[in-house]
């Protein structure tokens, strides 16, 4: 008997994981997408604001003042918002619509004869779908009408101003444990985390599947199973692809947080004033929870995808076979509102304990403060146990399935054996 050789190098799964990671990370495509992602994020913040301002400056509005009182005040107030407004003679609506069609104006505002006491103001224009346009128009009309009513009631101008002084009103999200954060910010963070987890699981899980199928179609799987156990193959592939995902998502997350927190400075570069909120500070435990769910959730689904990849022998078959898994993945997306509206409710509790949805929904529920640490621990334990189980089953399917393709005699027998 010969002396067994010692392994001098890395274990199989690591050699394989490293190969999978390098093959993906080295492509120009990866570098472009990773760097372009944050640029897109910056663009998402800056472009709407800049475009919005450009739009405001060129808005041309005609006012048909049937009350005969409010026209000049509206023109002045709109001018303060950088609209170009003018009072025109009362014509019928068809003529005004023709002017919009001819692009001579962007829109027209009809002031009712009953104003300011009553009546309905109507604005029609090509910019009426922009939310900020409607907000500032509403603000202007409201202010002018209230001032006019003040005059009718013989209130002095300074009292009207005092009456119209803005009310400082904010909402804070809290479930009693923490001091509370901006409700909007907490929801957005939770939502973004959920969406990123969902995207990462779908994209990289499907990547595992595709890469298993490709190994089968170019037959490289034969030399691989001769050199390494199928379990090491599967583990290495899942870890390698997952590493790519983790790297990419981390780069994006860091750049995304920086972008949002530096939003003021960024928008300042474009001469725009940034209002409001920043990303609420995240504790290490929050990051740890997001990371744990990303890793477990990814591994859970990636193992399922790997097993599916081993069972099929072409990309087309793979498309069909993965549909049920994608459907299962979509369910938590559809249940987002259930968790967001009542993070402490029973439905949210169930959805964040079931392994198929917990990875996607629990980080969001946690960031909304809806989950107790105990609930998170139980959920992680359930997810970890299910992941282990799924990985074991997937490895078994993988072991048999990976060599099944084509023409070999006994293929159908193998398939039958696999299902039993």
């Amino acid at each position: 008997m010969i002396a067994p050789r010692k392994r001098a190098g890395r274990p199989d799964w690591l050699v394989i994981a490293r190969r999978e990671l390098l093959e993906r990370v080295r492509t120009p495509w990866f570098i472009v997408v990773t760097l372009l992602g944050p640029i897109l994020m910056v663009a998402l913040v800056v472009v709407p604001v800049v475009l919005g301002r450009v739009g405001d400056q060129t808005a041309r509005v005609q006012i048909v003042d049937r009350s005969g009182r409010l026209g000049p005040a509206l023109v002045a107030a709109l001018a303060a918002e950088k609209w170009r407004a003018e009072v025109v003679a009362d014509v019928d609506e068809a003529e005004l619509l023709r002017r919009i069609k001819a692009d001579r104006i962007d829109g027209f505002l009809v002031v009712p004869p009953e104003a300011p006491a009553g009546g309905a103001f109507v604005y029609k224009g090509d910019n009426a779908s922009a939310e900020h346009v409607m907000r500032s128009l509403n603000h202007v009309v409201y202010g002018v009408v209230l001032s006019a009513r003040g005059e009718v009631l013989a209130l002095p101008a300074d009292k009207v101003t005092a009456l119209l002084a803005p009310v400082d009103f904010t909402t804070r999200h809290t479930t009693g444990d923490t001091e509370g954060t901006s409700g909007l910010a907490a929801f957005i963070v939770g939502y973004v985390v959920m969406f990123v987890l969902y995207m990462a699981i779908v994209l990289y899980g499907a990547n595992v599947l595709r890469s298993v199928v490709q190994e089968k179609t170019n037959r490289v799987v034969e030399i691989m199973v001769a050199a390494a156990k199928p379990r090491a193959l599967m583990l290495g592939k899942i870890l390698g692809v997952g590493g790519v995902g983790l790297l990419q998502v981390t780069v994006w997350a860091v750049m995304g947080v920086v972008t949002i927190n530096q939003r003021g400075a960024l928008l300042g570069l474009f001469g725009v004033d940034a209002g409001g909120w920043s990303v609420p500070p995240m504790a290490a435990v929050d990051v740890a929870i997001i990371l744990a769910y990303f890793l477990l959730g990814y591994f859970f689904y990636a193992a399922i995808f790997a097993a599916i990849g081993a069972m099929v022998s072409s990309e087309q078959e793979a498309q069909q076979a993965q549909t049920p898994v994608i459907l299962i993945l979509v369910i938590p997306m559809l249940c987002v509102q259930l968790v967001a509206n009542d993070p402490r409710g029973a439905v949210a509790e169930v959805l964040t304990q079931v392994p198929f949805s917990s990875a996607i929904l629990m980080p969001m529920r946690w960031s909304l403060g809806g989950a107790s640490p105990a609930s998170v621990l139980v959920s992680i334990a359930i997810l970890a146990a299910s992941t282990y189980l799924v990985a074991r089953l997937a490895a078994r399917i993988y072991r048999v399935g990976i060599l099944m393709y084509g023409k070999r005699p006994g293929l159908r027998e193998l398939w039958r054996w696999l299902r039993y």
Partner: protein
Amino acid sequence: MSAGGLAVRVTGVTKRFGDHVAVDDVSFEVPVGVIYGVLGPNGAGKSTTLRMINDIIAPDQGEVELLGGLRPGPEAAPHVGFLPEERGLYPKMRALEMIAFMGELRGLAPRDARRRGEAWLERLGLAQWRDHKVQDLSKGMQQKVQFAATMIHEPELVILDEPWSGLDPINADVLRDVVREQQAAGRTVLFSTHLMEQAEQICEHIFIIARGRKVLDGRLADIKRAAAAEGRVALALQAAADHARAEPLLADRGLCAAVRPAAGSGAGPGLELEVELAAGVDAQRLLAALCGAAVALRRFEVVTPSLHQIFVERVGREAAATAARLPRGAA
């Protein structure tokens, strides 16, 4: 590595796929340091056997032991190199990376794997292609990369499944040289093929398998000698008159078991013959009888059959026997 040890011992191995018995109670032994050919027609169970030796599939019954006591699997993997019938490489990997990667899977340290990979590329004349992607190489070059990936870790046991199928003559020679080098370095080479010419040129030992069963195994030289002793004579007669005089002797079933026209005979009908002697009859007796009958001979030769002939005959006989057994079994 002990001289005279066994590189592979397969004992009573059976593998079924559903109702189909792919390998049926097969046993053989491969001594260390030989070139051993597993021969058989398509679907005979060659690949299944090699896959069991490589722990890609597990036998239903029986045992496989490698290199004097190792079980197939992780323990043996660093000592074994396997070239599967279905070749495949990662198309996006560079040639050197691909080879070194396989070396690492077989337990080499990364730096060592790279160094040996470079040496192999040099040896196979691919040095300037080391940093090219596999998909950019020609088919022949890809095959060489595949050989290198199989042997980079200098395995004591090299297993090649149909290594010559799809090779051009030049690469077939390269592979033959590589196989001989491996043997010269004291390693064992086990391969399967259905190409008898390749096997005859290179094998010392053969194992013939058909329909999942062993037909024959042993040293090629012994098998050939035995086949020759079974008595086969190539005969060329001078003229038609000689054929007439020889006729009674050739028809004598006590002397000749079978007579058939030799393959590719051009000297006229019935003048070139191949004679299978009856059991217990040696060639000298036929020669004496022919001389006694005044048959003029152009040629009288005791034939050593080619491996091809032995193969066709033995596998054909086996197939015939199986076919004869089947109806009774089915009824």
